[in-house]
């Protein structure tokens, strides 16, 4: 168990190191950092001074060590575009992205499980078939088209919900939240649906498949024989056992939700990290791109690591198979 955890942790560190090298090479070799900082009429001597002050004369290995040391302290340099430290830009926009991602995940879980259970229990009803069709569309339509469709329906035509921004936000310490104001909550609805729709279809299909599988097992038949109500069998026994893989998938998908927020945030002009990243790509703001890559990788690697370790805690059967040398 301990050996497994350690091996996984070392692997995770290896991945982060590799991503760090990519991020550093982007920062260092894709375009000359000095050119991005100085203006056109800066003299050669001044350029040299800037180069020296940034430490670009040192050996590459030294530079990489320093870059990694700084990144570990969340210092990612200064944005070319905004002339502000990247870390404060990211910190400012992180609450918006996290709130959106969490709301989208909750939306996907609640409706995905409900629709999945329904379409498993009442397989041949019209509603279940509609759910299946919706899930096919949810997988086939690109996220941004769904966002535009929702904006056209609920903002332009009906005028019920705002089409851009976070609405009014309240500052709680360094965190800004839109959950405490009415306009903030209203602004959250459309982006959460847009972002969560893909996860919803995924969870719905998974719950449906798992439910159908579980309902065929012996212990469900035995529960029926014991004379339990169908309600107790479906929700007390069957659903409970389908939830483990569902929560795992939802957990693993959380990283993708944050990454896919890039698209949703652009459609809804949501002031989060994803929008910052897209603007950085458009304006070739390498420090922001490199920092975003590191941040997202850290989130991905952490989630994968935690899920891997939790698996062995939750499911003892896995432990014996893990003892085999890899």
């Amino acid at each position, binding site marked *: 168990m301990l050996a497994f955890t350690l091996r996984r942790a070392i692997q995770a560190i290896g991945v982060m190191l590799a*991503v760090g090298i990519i991020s550093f090479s*982007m920062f260092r070799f894709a*375009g000359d950092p000095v050119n991005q900082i100085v203006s056109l009429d800066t003299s050669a001597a001044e350029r040299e001074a800037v180069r020296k002050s940034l430490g670009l004369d040192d050996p590459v290995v030294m530079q990489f060590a320093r870059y990694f040391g700084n990144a570990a302290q969340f210092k990612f340099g200064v944005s070319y575009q905004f002339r502000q430290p990247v870390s404060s830009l990211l910190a400012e926009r992180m609450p918006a992205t996290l709130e959106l991602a969490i709301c989208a995940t909750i939306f996907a879980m609640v409706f995905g499980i409900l629709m999945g259970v329904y379409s498993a229990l009442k397989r041949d009803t019209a509603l279940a078939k509609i759910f299946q069709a919706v899930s096919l569309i949810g997988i086939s339509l*690109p996220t*941004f*088209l769904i966002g*535009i469709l929702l904006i056209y329906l609920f903002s*332009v035509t009906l005028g019920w919900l705002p089409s851009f921004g976070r609405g009014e936000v309240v500052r709680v310490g360094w965190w800004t939240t839109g959950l405490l104001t009415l306009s903030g909550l209203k602004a959250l609805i459309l982006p959460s649906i847009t972002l969560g729709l893909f996860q919803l279809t995924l969870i719905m299909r998974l719950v449906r498949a798992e439910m159908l599988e579980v309902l065929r097992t012996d212990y469900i038949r035995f529960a029926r024989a014991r004379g339990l109500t169908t309600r107790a069998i479906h929700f007390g026994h069957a659903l409970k056992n389908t939830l483990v893989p569902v929560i795992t998938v939802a957990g693993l998908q959380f990283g993708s939700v944050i*990454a896919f927020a*890039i698209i949703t945030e652009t459609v809804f002009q949501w002031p989060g990290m994803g929008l910052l990243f897209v603007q950085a790509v458009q304006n070739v703001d390498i420090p922001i791109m490199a920092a975003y890559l590191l941040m997202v990788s850290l989130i991905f690697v952490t989630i994968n690591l935690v899920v891997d370790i939790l698996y062995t805690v939750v499911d003892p059967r896995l432990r014996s198979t893990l003892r085999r040398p890899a």
Partner: protein
Amino acid sequence: MSDAVVPHRAEPSAAPSRAGTGWFRRALDSDIFYSFRRSKLTMVAAAVTLLFFLLAIFASVLSVQNPFDPAQLQLMNSRISPLWTADGQSPFLLGTDEQGRDVFSAILYGLRISLVVGVLGVVFAGTLGITLGLIAGYVGGAVDGLIMRIADVQLTFPAILIALLVNGVAKSVFGNRLDAMSTLVVLVIAIGLSFWVQYARTVRGSVMVEKNKDYVAAAQLIGLPAPIIMLRHVLPNTMGPILVIATINLALAVITEATLSFLGAGMPDTMPSLGTLIRIGNNYLFAGEWWIVAFPGFALAGLILSINLLGDWLRDALNPKLR
């Protein structure tokens, strides 16, 4: 599998009229074609996909103007609504945008760009993935470990993120003002680099099974060099699953290209793909000019849906377990 367990081959309609010989006859008699004819949805999907490809190929014949040529655009004709509405004007079937560009012509040309990027992206991803998969599976050892480790790591990141990063780095290296053709190449490379993993994994898996079979040993015994054995003998036996992946990946590649263009990191306004058209049209949604964004959106959705349906069918048809 013997003929006895495949009763549909004895269908009366299939027998008499097919006097033709060779591959065409064999194709018509195959299991795949049979399962194709059985599924109406698949036939519709195939017809729609074919229609989209034909529209893209004959874009210059079918359109009323060349939407990329500024000389043919007249501002007088801007923001005309579709033909069947009260303010519609001939020959602008689906209306025009703010530059006086005919939406229908723009869609045809945009479709062409989207499909070119999608197909080339799939070809590039496939070539890269198949090559690396063949090498990993055939050579094994440390090379295999390295390639598959990279694949594992890359698989944890969404393709769109990788494509955006490749795009940003390319812009930084070549300068921010890339012309339209180079942007197209960058997009193909970005998509190829984001989708190679699946091919590599599939090919590696098949190669590891195939390389222990007698025919490979025979090829080695007569002294054929490894690349020839890989390409001519092992590769053809792994083509089924690759075809399925390629079809589904075409839909993904088209989505990725459209998304990149929508985010402003893809095709420029001067040479728009469907994604670019949607980004431009999105700005006019609030002014009530819905047709500028709606029709490119429908075209994109229809294209992706039909390719996906085709891919789903192909996966089931080529999977012997489901027959």
